[in-house]
């Protein structure tokens, strides 16, 4: 059984609800950019004096006593929200009808235990809507389209017993079927005014004259048109929220983890029911000083594992603790398809994704955010230009080793170490470094490098490769001279 809730002249009702003084006066709502705005809706009193939808502002102004108002969409949205809430309280399965705003179809099958039989339900529904300040038509029928047509065409409550759809629709005008203008004209020329007259025509003849649309209209007029209901479902992602308010402020993080564990479990249960996993968790802590502390934990791969997620939350909150005691907490989840990987017996060793996440979180806590990750070279001429990206090894795959000579590795000093240099014929001959005097045995250079000279971050230096000797030990270093600061420093040691 379907119950249809249809507020006639919805826009006018919504406007009158906001301005109760207009209820007994003729008024019209104008929509569009002035001066080209036209009448969008009018109340019954305005229509009775001849106001039509689509009239221009000037035409509407010719009617004495007519109040012209601009359309306010926010009022209509507020009214629709009210009706939506009422419809939801009568059935869990509701569908919003596309053609008419704020018209809802409710699946009321099995609701008799809560609201009585269908007549009682229709009365309750109408009274509830009227109590909120709106006038609606309510129709209940076995067939969805029959209930819809009855709600459009009959004022008040209409209950159609099963099997009497055609007779109930018979007296209604054809306009309830939402005809196309061409079909309306055809039926008008044929002298067909009601649904009963349309239903009396042979289906084959109707199809022969107006095509396949005739089949649908014939079924609608007879109350036999099928319908597949698409009930409105709350957004799954928006529902992945857990909130908890505490009776007294909590300062210790460990005690908070018990609550977070329970909340994470709740979220994971919902996510697992949809065969999904959690891709990120957003924790909002409401603090004692009125502020909010927000942290986002985003594992590299979607997880379905409470201990891992909880450990990540714990490590993140320990690394970034809140500034005051906690009064309430919210946990927002985001779901994604779970990670699936094809494992093999002969693949190389690789860290397990779940354990790797926890490991990286621990390492970030120990060393700092930017000190645990994979190096990535930047497309820059500046020596030693790199950035650290989160470590996420690609799936194990063997690559062909390139046979190249072993390069000499440079051990870099961060920051470069300042040194004293004795120059002979413009080249370094002795170096004072860490309080020790080194003799320059061999030298190659200078290699002049510069970049970004067109910006303030420009750099310039002269680099030398030197073999330094002290006593019996030798080492090969790269030293550099910065002409801007007139300073010598060691960039690194070849090792």
């Amino acid at each position: 059984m379907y119950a249809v809730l249809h507020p006639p002249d919805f826009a006018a009702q919504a406007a009158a609800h906001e301005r109760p003084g207009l209820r007994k006066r003729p008024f019209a709502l104008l929509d569009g950019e002035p001066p080209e705005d036209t009448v969008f809706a009018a109340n019954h009193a305005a229509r009775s004096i001849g106001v039509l939808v689509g009239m221009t502002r000037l035409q509407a102004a010719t009617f004495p006593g007519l109040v012209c108002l601009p359309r306010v969409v926010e009022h209509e949205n507020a009214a629709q929200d009210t009706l939506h809430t009422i419809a939801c309280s009568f059935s869990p399965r509701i569908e919003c009808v596309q053609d008419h705003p704020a018209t809802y179809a409710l699946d009321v099958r099995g609701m008799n235990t809560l609201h009585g039989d269908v007549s009682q339900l229709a009365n309750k529904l109408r009274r509830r809507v009227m109590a909120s300040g709106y006038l609606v038509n309510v129709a209940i029928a076995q067939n969805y389209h029959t209930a819809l047509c009855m709600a459009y065409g009959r004022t008040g409550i209409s209950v159609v017993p099963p099997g009497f759809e055609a007779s109930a629709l018979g007296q209604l005008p054809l306009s309830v079927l939402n005809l196309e203008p061409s079909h309306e004209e055809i039926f008008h020329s044929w002298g067909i005014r009601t649904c009963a007259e349309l239903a009396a025509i042979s289906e084959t003849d109707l199809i022969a004259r107006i095509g396949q649309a005739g089949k649908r209209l014939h079924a609608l007029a007879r109350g036999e048109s099928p319908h597949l209901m698409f009930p409105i479902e709350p957004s799954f992602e928006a529902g992945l929220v857990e909130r908890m308010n505490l009776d007294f402020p909590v300062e210790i993080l460990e005690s908070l983890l018990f609550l977070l564990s329970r909340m994470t479990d709740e979220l994971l249960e919902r996510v697992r029911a949809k065969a999904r996993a959690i891709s990120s968790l957003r924790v909002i802590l409401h603090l004692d000083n009125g502020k909010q502390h927000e942290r986002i934990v985003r594992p590299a791969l979607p997880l379905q594992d409470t201990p891992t997620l909880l450990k990540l939350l714990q490590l993140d909150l320990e690394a970034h603790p809140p500034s005051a005691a906690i009064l309430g907490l919210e946990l927002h989840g985001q779901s994604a398809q779970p990670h699936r990987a094809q494992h093999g017996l002969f693949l190389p060793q690789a860290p397990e994704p779940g354990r790797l996440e926890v490991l990286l979180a621990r390492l970030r806590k120990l060393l700092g955010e930017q000190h645990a990750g994979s190096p990535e070279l930047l497309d820059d001429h500046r020596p030693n230009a790199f950035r650290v990206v989160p470590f996420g090894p690609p799936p194990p795959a063997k690559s062909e080793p390139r046979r190249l000579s072993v390069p000499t590795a440079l051990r870099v000093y961060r920051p470069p170490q300042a040194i004293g240099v004795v120059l002979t014929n413009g080249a370094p001959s002795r170096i004072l470094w860490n309080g020790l005097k080194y003799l320059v045995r061999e030298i190659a250079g200078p290699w002049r490098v510069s970049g970004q000279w067109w910006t303030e971050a420009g750099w310039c230096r002269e680099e030398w490769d030197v073999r330094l000797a002290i006593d019996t030990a030798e080492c090969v270093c790269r030293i550099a001279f910065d002409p801007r600061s007139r300073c010598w420093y060691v960039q690194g040691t070849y090792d």
Partner: protein
Amino acid sequence: MVVPQRPDCKLSRLSLAALRSAVESPSPLELFTWVTFALFSLILVFMASAARLRLEVEATLANRVPAALSLKVKQSPELFPTGIGQIDRALGGGIPRGSITEISGAASTGKTSFGLATVAAITQTGAACAWVDVSDSLSPESAAAANVVLKRLLWLRATAERKQKVTEKPWSRLEQALKATDLLLQAGGFSAVVLDMSDVLPRHTMRIPLATWYRLRLSAEQARTALIFLTQSPCAGSCAALSLRCQPAETAPFNRNGETALFEQQRYVLTRERNRNESVLHKKPPMRAEWAAETLWTRVR
């Protein structure tokens, strides 16, 4: 249960007779001879009893624990090639997996080049590696030049006391690095972990308790990870399965063929000081391998 005839009864009787003779013997020399003979006989008795007892225990527990009291036969470890042919030949294939390999040497002796070449060879097989950098001195450019697959390399940089020189008081950095290494080995999944302590003075590394190295050795064994230490002087002691010493080879002078001198290559010598994976019977003398590392611009030329 029927107790079988003990085969060492004759020996026991013999030793008792020897003791009796010792008590009855008049001269000290005879007394000493008889006592020595009696003690030797008793030792033989105990050894025979212990062997019999061991067999009985093992037979009883055979269903649950096979060879409960027998020594485990040591398997030769899996080896990771280092990517440097001369060194692989000297080491018999590469560095061992699941053990500690210690590479020691002064500055400019090729430790880092050797470590990067090894990591490159491992990452190219598709495995993941980690580089724990005590002094934050790894050059990503050098790593990329050594063909390390950077996406498979986890680089951990110790951050404490950034204003101080590493050589002054490296305790916090060392502590961070050791903790990070411990975490890596516990998590598992890394084929090789390099603990780079090249810039830490020997007097500091020597003060790390031996228990730390024992713990790391056990963790590496369980995680089947090759743990590589780069140090100035050996510090892990007997925990290191393979101990290598890096030294500079004969100095290759800068190339002066062009208009200006050019640093082209550095020659190194690697000496194998200890390999605990060798059998005692087939122990080889220390082996040396000479190898060279070239600068990047040499490739271009």
